[in-house]
């Protein structure tokens, strides 16, 4: 009421439009599984067994916060990437799988501002055999990705692209390393 009395109608419309633009352009969106999925890696070893994937350490994205990577979205990206590579014959629920891949997101180091956003990402990857709980492979994989103004003008979008790129690179690197493993 205060605004409508003190400001002319065109000014109110302009301010409302500016606020709408601010909110629509500035709302952070989470990293998407499709954009985090690694380019197909040709697996050296194609294992006939099944694999379950479990991710921890991720976070949800709040509209007023910074773009984040959720456990579920990162798990989906990992599952799709591994299925595409043929590293394991089947991706299934963890309780039914022959092998379990546990991935913990350790660090998602995001810049607060800047023209180019470089995100540093680190995850601990653990592959274990479910039958005897034997740890087959454990590795800390670090990756980074830079998104520039040319990739996206809006900051929150640029940050999301950097997050997705860093996650994608991490998955690709981990799959490449797992491809060289002999599970026999």
């Amino acid at each position: 009421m205060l605004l409508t009395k003190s400001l002319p109608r065109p000014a109110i419309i302009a301010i409302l439009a500016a606020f709408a633009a601010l909110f629509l352009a500035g709302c952070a969106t989470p990293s998407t599984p499709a954009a985090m999925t690694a380019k197909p890696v040709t697996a050296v070893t194609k294992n006939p067994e099944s694999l379950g994937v479990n991710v921890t350490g991720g976070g949800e994205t709040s509209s007023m916060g910074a773009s984040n990577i959720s456990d579920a979205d990162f798990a989906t990206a990992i599952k799709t990437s591994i299925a595409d590579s043929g590293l394991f014959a089947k991706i299934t629920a963890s309780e039914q799988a022959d092998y379990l891949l546990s991935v913990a997101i350790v660090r998602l180091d995001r810049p607060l501002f800047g023209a180019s956003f470089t995100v540093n990402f680190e995850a601990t990857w653990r592959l274990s055999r479910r039958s005897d709980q034997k740890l087959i492979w454990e590795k800390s994989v670090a990756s980074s990705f830079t998104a520039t103004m040319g990739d996206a003008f809006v900051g929150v979008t640029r940050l999301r692209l950097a997050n997705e790129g860093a996650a994608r690179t991490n998955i690709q690197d981990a799959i490449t390393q797992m491809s060289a493993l002999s599970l026999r």
Partner: protein
Amino acid sequence: MKKYGLILLLASLAGLLSGCVTQLRSDVSTGTDLSAVKKFYVARLPKDERGVEKLIADRLNLIGKQATSGERSAIPADAEALVTYQDKWMWDITMYMIELNVQIRKPGSEIAIATGHSLRTSLARKSPPEMVEEVLGDLFKKR
């Protein structure tokens, strides 16, 4: 009246943009018992010129651990855990620590066994020692 409207708008905008967001989160990997770890080494972040590594080591000593700090390459042979961190700072009237991430790692492989995170925007800011206390407190509470 026009002035009041503009002031209200600016205040709303400032409130929305700065906010008072707080996040505190920690994860300890399955099978890890942090209470069993006694000797810590805090590796200084190369670009850190504020001595955050000393704050972390001091806090660890205060809670009954044995902690030293220094360059990452100078980790003592008897260290049972390596502590790394990333601190972010922001300016709002004065500089303040907006975010602190801490990782506790196995010394050899440097695989993280526990992680802690705190984010506090300007209106909810705490001093660096308090941020360290908050993150480590939450981490060791989970053990």
